[in-house]
């Protein structure tokens, strides 16, 4: 009997942690009970991107998009929708307005998807990542077949060069150029490495590709191997990504079984072997020279460049190292051509970029847009804007190496050069949105704390300098800052940028510098007025009850320090000398009568 309905349950890490595995099992159970197991199939896919609304379930061919599905909803979906064709309206994802609600059911038309252009994520959420046939069904391994049977290694490199593809791991180095720099002066081994370390806080683009479409990375690495004459590849992935590791290893095994890895691929005599290597999750191990040291079994610390990896890399042999997302573009470029890729994006940044959108935004999740899309389109049209009607304040790109952009930059087309010109970077694709309730000094401090923790300690500017910067920031948020601290912060920042050994230290001051540039007044408020305008820095704020108070007593009951007094139905008061500023009163107040000043 032919299959009439396919139920796709999102199997990304986000949805898995809210029980999508159990949901899938429940579907299988119910479908069996209804005797539909020969007509309906269920499987876990990779990430759909709209993580905010997970667990997500899509029913084909109706293209129905169910959001926030619970195990207890499954029976209803089966009995109503799958058996009787009645879409379960109350579970269908809806975008805000009533007008949109009318056409919510078809997920391809949802704003969140309609505005995207998917190349790196083209299979994520569509195929079953545990089934190599499904990847092949979407033209998988055809690009590998094409290069092995009809292109010379030089032609492959030229095609990638012409496409204008630049590294998605942060620095944006042209991929074709990197491949062409590989040293061919002797016939010893060469290596291809995929960087899947993904250490930026808030970033999960690479994890999503490995979980949702692992074969694309395998295929691209084999193509890269052919292009530079390497027969061995390694995927360096952090052990904190267990699902990605499992799916990647499964995919590698299947590729070997099909003869798409190993010896004599497609009978052409070309051999390529691939292995996953697990990292322990240090940020610095994402830096390419530290990463290679880690694969070699050494302590993960960077070294000076040159020599560049293309000349002396892994085990002193010529090596190319590319990011997961960079590689995920390669098979499509080979199949559809550099010309096609050139039509997408801006003059100097071709193609698309995947972003992990988080922070104060309605649609937390993963999206892929053409380069040149504006921040406003990403945040408002795709991201659905800021929750609770709050005011947009800034967006942080590039994580601990990047910087903040403000409302004045909302209409800037996103590409490598524009972001760099504004004092941030594209980075690997983390995008954290902040609203009026975020303190920019606090944000800078958050990222600096991260880099201080993650500094490997090899060079002094990074090890000592970032720590000194953090001490100054702590002084400022404690209300003990002076104006000369701001100058000193800037001087230290410039010095650390100029003298650190690797990219970690060279970029660590960026979050501080960019907030100093864009939100100088906020620093001054902390230093001169001893006030935190956003009401975040504990030592600079006090909690007050306003006249809105209805005297319900909720704040009093929830205060762990017994700092609140007041009769029922009368205005309450906070004794600021014993208040510990935990915020429990503010969270519990039903009428928003408690404020910080």
């Amino acid at each position, binding site marked *: 009997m032919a299959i*009439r309905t396919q139920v796709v349950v999102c199997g990304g890490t986000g949805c898995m942690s809210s029980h999508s595995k159990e949901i899938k099992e429940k579907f299988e159970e119910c479908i069996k009970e209804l005797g539909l197991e020969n007509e309906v199939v269920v499987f876990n896919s990779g990430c759909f991107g709209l993580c905010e609304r997970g667990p997500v379930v899509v029913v084909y*061919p109706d293209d129905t998009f169910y959001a926030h599905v619970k195990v207890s909803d499954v029976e209803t979906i089966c009995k109503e929708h799958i058996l*009787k064709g009645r879409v379960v309206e109350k579970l269908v994802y809806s975008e805000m307005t009533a007008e949109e609600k009318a056409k919510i059911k078809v997920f391809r038309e949802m704003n969140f998807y309609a505005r995207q252009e998917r190349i790196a994520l083209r299979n994520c959420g569509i195929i079953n990542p545990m089934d190599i*046939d*499904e990847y*092949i069904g*979407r033209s998988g391994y055809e690009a590998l077949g094409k290069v092995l049977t009809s292109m010379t290694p030089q032609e492959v490199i030229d095609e990638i060069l012409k496409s204008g593809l630049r590294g998605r791991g942060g620095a944006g180095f042209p991929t074709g150029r990197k491949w062409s720099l590989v040293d061919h002066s002797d016939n010893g081994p060469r290596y291809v490495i995929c960087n899947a370390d993904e250490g930026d806080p808030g970033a999960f683009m690479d994890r999503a590709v490995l979980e949702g479409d692992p074969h694309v990375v395998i295929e691209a690495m084999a193509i890269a191997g052919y292009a530079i004459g390497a027969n061995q590849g390694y995927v360096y992935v952090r052990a904190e990504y267990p699902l990605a590791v499992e799916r990647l290893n499964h995919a590698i095994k299947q590729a070997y079984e099909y003869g798409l890895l190993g010896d004599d691929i*497609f009978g052409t005599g070309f051999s390529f072997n691939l292995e996953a290597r697990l990292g322990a999750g240090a940020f610095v191990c994402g830096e390419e020279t530290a990463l290679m040291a880690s694969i070699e079994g050494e302590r993960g610390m960077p070294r000076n460049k040159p020599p560049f990896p293309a000349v002396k890399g892994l085990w002193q042999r010529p090596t190319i190292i590319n990011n997961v997302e960079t590689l995920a573009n390669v098979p499509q470029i080979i199949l559809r051509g550099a010309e096609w890729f050139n039509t997408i994006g801006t003059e100097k940044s071709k193609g698309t970029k995947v972003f992990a959108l988080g922070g104060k935004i309605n649609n937390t999740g993963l999206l892929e847009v053409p380069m040149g899309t504006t921040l406003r389109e990403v945040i408002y049209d795709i991201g659905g804007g800021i929750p609770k009607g709050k005011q947009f304040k800034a967006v942080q790109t590039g994580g601990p190496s990047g910087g903040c952009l403000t409302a004045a930059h909302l209409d800037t087309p996103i590409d490598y050069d524009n972001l760099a010109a504004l004092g941030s970077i594209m980075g690997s694709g983390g995008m954290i949105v902040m609203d009026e309730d975020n303190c920019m000094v606090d944000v800078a401090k958050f990222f600096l704390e991260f880099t201080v923790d993650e500094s490997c300690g090899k060079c002094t500017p990074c090890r000592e300098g970032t720590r000194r910067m953090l001490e100054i920031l702590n002084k400022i948020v404690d209300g003990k800052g002076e104006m000369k601290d701001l100058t000193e912060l800037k001087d230290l920042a410039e010095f650390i940028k100029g003298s650190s050994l690797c990219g970690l230290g060279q970029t660590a001051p960026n979050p501080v510098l960019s907030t100093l540039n864009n939100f100088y007044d906020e620093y001054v408020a902390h230093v001169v007025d001893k006030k935190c305008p956003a009401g975040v820095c504990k030592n600079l704020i006090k909690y007050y009850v306003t006249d809105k108070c209805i005297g319900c007593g909720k704040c009093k009951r929830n205060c762990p320090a017994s700092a609140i007094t007041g009769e029922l139905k009368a205005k309450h008061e906070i004794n600021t000398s014993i208040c510990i500023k935990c915020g429990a009163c503010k969270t519990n107040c039903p009428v928003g009568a408690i404020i910080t000043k």
Partner: protein
Amino acid sequence: MKSLEDLKKIREQAAKKMSIRDEKNGYRVVVGMATCGITAGARPVLNRIVELVAEKDLNNVTVTQVGCIGECALEPIVEVYDPQGNRSTYCLVDPKKAEKIVEQHVIGGKVVEEYLIEKFKK
């Protein structure tokens, strides 16, 4: 796998299996599958249509189900929407009639007048 030919074979099989998930803009065939429809025999009708569409590689055709169409006495009901959105409602359909609807209307583009609901409801 030793050749591009082998790869192509796997691709074709897999693509067929996955075509339900593709975006389509051809005919839509909708089978009424509420309790009344199922009791009247809509299940075998739906399955026969799904099979035919798969057998004949009608990649651009969507087959789906809806709840009660509101003509319970005339179930099983099958509705066919052509790419322009014109609807034909067929009633008292059985697997044999379903085959004719697929052959003549969905493939041939010619409405099967004798099964149309208008013939039964005067």
